[in-house]
């Protein structure tokens, strides 16, 4: 468990926040300039905040009040930088083993063969960093951080400098890391909601150097108050679904608590549990069960909360048999449909709105 309290002021920017993380992947989300990298650098010891306290599993890494500051090399935090930062004069193998000699004797962690296999970098071992692609560099950087047996892995937008296909190349490795046996907690900094929805267990939302929300991913993503923070086009609940069947026309049947959904592009085998990200702007509400619609994804829901936005829109929190959904409708629709807390209605989800990249696990 990690407890963080930081206060830092520089160049007209003012950071003042505190949050905690538990195991699994905690995503630190915010727009550019929200202070994400400042936070992660302060955790790694690469930046000394004006005031702060950082406690990792009971060990105080930083406490400005008591004058405690553990230097970066003794913190044992793996750091995967946005720009990989491999050592240009060493080949991949030597990059990977760079930190091994500094890990405490008998420390628990991945061994060389496991990491190389996990990341698929066996063919790269004798190559020089300058000859690697962006995605390959990131995989090596990840392996390098894992092999120094960190207690916590810090990842600063590891995919931000990669294009779409390269991102898809890395994401499965991160999922394997999350679901694998390493049990390594990860703090994952990102401004890409799709990555977070796919990877994170817990979400910490930052805005202008302040904490805006924190909690379990499913809770925060389904919170109407988080819509302006995530962006109206990016906001949307994440729910878990079981893959039941794949039809020949390319559609797959997935079971959620309130019923079944027919979705295209699901790669996961039958019986697996996947995450679905349902964008709030792609959920349509109806008071009656609609007939004759082209969409077959209709779930009975109950209105949990009506959250008016700043503009003409409103965010509606929905309960779908225990799963939560988020819908974004106009304030006029709220009035016309007379949407109120506790009211039953139907949510229509267009099949095409669940992109293949948003499904995973």
């Amino acid at each position: 468990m990690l407890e963080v309290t930081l206060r830092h002021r520089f160049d007209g920017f003012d950071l003042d926040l505190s949050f905690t993380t538990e195991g699994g992947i905690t995503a630190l989300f915010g727009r550019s300039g929200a202070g994400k990298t400042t936070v992660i650098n302060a955790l790694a010891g690469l930046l000394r905040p004006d005031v702060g306290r950082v406690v990792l599993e009971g060990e105080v890494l930083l406490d400005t009040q008591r004058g405690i500051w553990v230097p970066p090399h003794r913190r044992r935090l793996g750091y995967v930088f946005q720009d990989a930062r491999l050592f240009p004069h060493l080949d991949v193998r030597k990059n990977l083993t760079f930190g091994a000699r500094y890990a405490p004797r008998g420390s628990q962690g991945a061994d060389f063969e496991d990491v190389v296999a996990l990341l698929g970098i066996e063919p790269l071992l004798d190559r020089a960093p300058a000859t690697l692609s962006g995605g390959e560099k990131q995989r090596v950087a990840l392996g390098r951080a894992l092999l120094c047996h960190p207690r916590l892995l810090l990842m600063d937008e590891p995919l931000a400098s990669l294009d779409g296909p390269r991102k898809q190349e890395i994401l499965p490795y991160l999922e394997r890391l999350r679901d694998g046996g390493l049990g390594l907690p990860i703090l994952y900094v990102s401004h890409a909601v799709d990555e977070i929805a796919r990877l994170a267990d817990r979400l910490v939302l930052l805005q202008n150097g302040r904490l805006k929300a924190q909690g379990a991913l499913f809770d925060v993503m389904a919170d109407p108050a988080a819509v302006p923070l995530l962006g109206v086009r990016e906001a949307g609940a994440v729910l878990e679904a079981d893959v039941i069947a794949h039809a020949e026309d390319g559609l797959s049947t997935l079971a959620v608590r309130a019923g079944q959904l027919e979705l295209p592009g699901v790669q996961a085998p039958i019986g697996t549990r996947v995450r679905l990200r349902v964008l709030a702007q792609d959920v349509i509400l109806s008071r009656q069960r609609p007939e004759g619609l082209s969409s077959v994804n209709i779930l009975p829901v109950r209105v949990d909360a009506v959250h008016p936005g700043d503009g003409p829109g409103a965010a509606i929190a929905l309960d779908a048999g225990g799963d939560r959904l988020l819908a974004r409708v106009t304030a006029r629709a709220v009035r016309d449909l007379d949407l109120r807390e506790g009211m039953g209605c139907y949510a229509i989800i267009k099949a095409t709105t669940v992109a293949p990249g948003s499904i995973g696990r």
Partner: protein
Amino acid sequence: MVSFGPIMDLDAAAWAALLLSLRVATVAMLCSLPLALWVAWILARKQFRGKGVLSALVHLPLVLPPVVTGYLLLLSFGRNAPMGRLLESFGIGLAFHWTGAVLAALIMSFPLMVRAMRLAIEAVDPRIEAAAATLGAPRISVFCRVTLPLIFPGILAGAVMGFAKAMGEFGATITFVANIPGQTQTLPSAIWTALQVPGGESRALTMAALAGLVALAAVLLSEALARRVARRIAGAR
């Protein structure tokens, strides 16, 4: 056409001058290497009051007339100067001694070495070093395993520059340690002496060719080494 035949007929005094110059330049270069690296590091990476003064002081021998530098050395380390007497009591005589030539060469070549190394250090991305620290490497390990290999071509360039400058140093040396054949007469001093003697031109020319050869060899060697390092970093194995 220049004939290299006479090289074989070098007289004892010329040989002595060549060997002394090689010894002075090598010792001066090796002595100033760690110090130059340290000063280059400070100038490249540290921010402090008086940095400008330190930089000016280091570069002063580059712009000062060499004879003035030699004279200042004589004033500070001469037999009658306090520093000179102190060193003399430890058995280190500098004035009119070959070690004095080393000091003169060291001071004259120092700015060139610092310059080359500073440029190399400034070219190293501090974020790479930060990455090494997050992997658990203490500062000294970061320097030895990351910074040093990356700036090696710069150190090499600085060393060759320093060596060549020390080989050719004339003004400060002759002022500080004079021109005693077999003791303080370096190759440039010997060339200069030969030119003062009627009919000494052929001797002077031979020694000049020799000085040229040494300089050329040093530069070629460093180029080859630097290319190898650069190739390794670029990844073409």
